[in-house]
């Protein structure tokens, strides 16, 4: 790759940090869908409390990359270590990792047959074995944080898209995750609802949550990201702090991409 120098920079900075401060480590990760090579030599280290924004053209492998982190997709080569646990075929470890990694999807993926409150308490009760009362208390706390406690007894279908996405965030937070993954959380929303979801994410970032966010909301990236990653053809093409990334992109493809989305 032509831009290995820019890849190295942040890693040099973080390599002195102790092992336990690493939230996610990807080393030489490859993945194929049949013959199709989706992820090619992904190397990435995310420190605890860091906010990473991932962008890139459609089909570049952004979703695939973050879905590998909680094993919604399986990688075939390389190592992925999440919170000190390496992802293997060991189902126990996978469950352990999923408990600590929250994920927010483009299409919310709320459970339509359960109320908002039940959506939020199901996993704490049945995965974390929390007593129902405590789980409901925790759920109400997070629903209040995402500013929709009054909707707790409605069903997802009765809420607007923005509200549903905030419920999805609250649902993940109820598991008290160490890392939050976001896969284009605002791209299925009407424009006037994007802000309420981004505001929720900003406040989450301000509290020091480790976040990896696939998004094309460049305002969000500028505001909260510690690093911005640009992906293309299954590779990390460029990675930099947001200021430098936006004002001074190095790689041709990054320039082209930013030229297309920033006007």
């Amino acid at each position, binding site marked *: 790759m032509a831009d290995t120098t820019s890849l190295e920079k942040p890693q040099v900075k973080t390599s002195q940090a102790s092992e336990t401060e690493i939230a996610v480590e990807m080393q030489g990760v490859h993945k194929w869908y049949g013959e199709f090579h989706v992820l090619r030599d992904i190397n990435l280290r995310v420190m605890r409390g860091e906010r990473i924004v991932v962008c890139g053209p459609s089909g570049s492998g952004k979703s695939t990359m973050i879905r590998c982190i*909680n094993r*919604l997709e399986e990688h075939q080569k390389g190592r992925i270590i999440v919170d000190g646990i390496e992802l293997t075929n060991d189902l126990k470890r996978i*469950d352990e990792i*999923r*408990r600590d*990694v*929250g*994920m927010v*999807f483009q*299409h919310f*993926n*709320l*459970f*339509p*047959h359960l109320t908002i409150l039940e959506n939020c308490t*199901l*996993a704490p009760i*049945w*995965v974390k074995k929390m007593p129902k009362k405590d789980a409901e208390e925790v759920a109400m706390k997070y629903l209040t944080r995402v500013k929709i406690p009054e909707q707790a007894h409605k*069903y997802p*279908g*009765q809420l607007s898209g923005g509200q549903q996405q905030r419920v999805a965030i609250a*649902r*993940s937070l109820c*598991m008290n995750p160490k890392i939050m993954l976001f896969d284009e959380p605002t791209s299925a929303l009407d424009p006037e609802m994007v802000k309420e979801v981004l505001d929720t994410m900003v406040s989450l970032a301000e509290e020091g949550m480790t976040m990896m966010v696939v998004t094309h909301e460049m305002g969000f990236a500028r505001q909260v990201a510690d690093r911005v990653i640009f992906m293309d053809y299954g590779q990390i093409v460029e990675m930099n702090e947001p200021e430098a990334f936006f004002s001074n992109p190095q790689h041709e493809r990054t320039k082209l991409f930013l030229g297309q989305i920033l006007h």
Partner: protein
Amino acid sequence: MNVVAPQRSFVRAEQVDALPPPRTASGPVLWMRENLFSGPINTVVTLVMAWVLFWTIPPIIDYLIGSAVWTGSDGSACREDTTGREVGACWAFVIDRINYFVYGSYPMELRWRPNIFFLVLAVGIVWMLWLDAPKRGIGAIYFFIVVPLLSYWLLAGFPMIGLEEVPTGLWGGILVTIVVSAVGIVVSLPFGVLLALGRRSHLPIVRLVCVIVIEFTRGVPLITVLFMANTMLPLFLAEGVTVDRLVRPLIGVAFFASAYMAEVIRGGLQAIPKGQYEGAMSLGLSYPKMMYFIILPQALRIVIPGIVNTFIGLFKDTTLVSIVGIFDLIRTVESARVDPVWSAPSVNYSGYAFAAIFYFLCCWGMSWYSQSVERRLAASEKR
């Protein structure tokens, strides 16, 4: 013509207030004119159908009610030569033999046991079907565990607590029809779920076994399954072990119903979007918990009409057990109508008419229920 150039800009000056919708006229005459006589073809069709109904409905009503015989103790009450009038349905025969139609040859003094069984089953069914019923979780346990055990002890006997044994050869009539259907229904739902999940499993052996069971059972007629259960089942078992004559077709029916149910449920599973699985997995739910809490409740809800449809088919198919010598309702009607005491031409029709009405009411009830659930789901989808 006066051509007006399109207006280029517009700003609304005053608010348009909400108005009630325009009144549409109504009333029976108008309804008939709009729906029955709206055109020449429609009018002709209406008249022809009216004529057909006029010629068919009154005779049927007359046969079933008007000239029916309600009282009498033998065939002479229902014969034209003895009564001297035209005779319709011979309900006297049905009323006289109703206990036989309901219980078969179940010992007279023990018939309170089937009665309690009917009650226990009815409570379970209402509990399961009434969607807003309290404690439906307990209802499911009651229906799938308590009801089968209790029914077995009540009907077959439980000498330890003083319920003497009643051989299944004495059971008959509606009792047997209901037992066979209930076993088919109670077994087919859980096994259908397991087979459907197995067929979608990632484990090749599990998938293969499930596919074979489903396709084989679905691929042969129920009669074949019944004959095989009747004659081949004893061959598979160790020497000296005998399977009850009623249990054999029960196993056959259960297999058959499970295979059909599995395919219905698989259809529901396929309709659940991938995102539901991913949402559940990302929260750390294990496969069984994901299926139990997230996927199956949604999948089963979608296929309620299909499930009920399978139940209706199963309910009517149970008449086939009479072929392997089980006295279900049809078989009891068969044997009662040839009784010389009740020899009269109309007795034959009346027995079958009774059976038809029984089956129709049961199936219609199921169908009505499934439609009401569908309506309810359609309403809740809108929310």
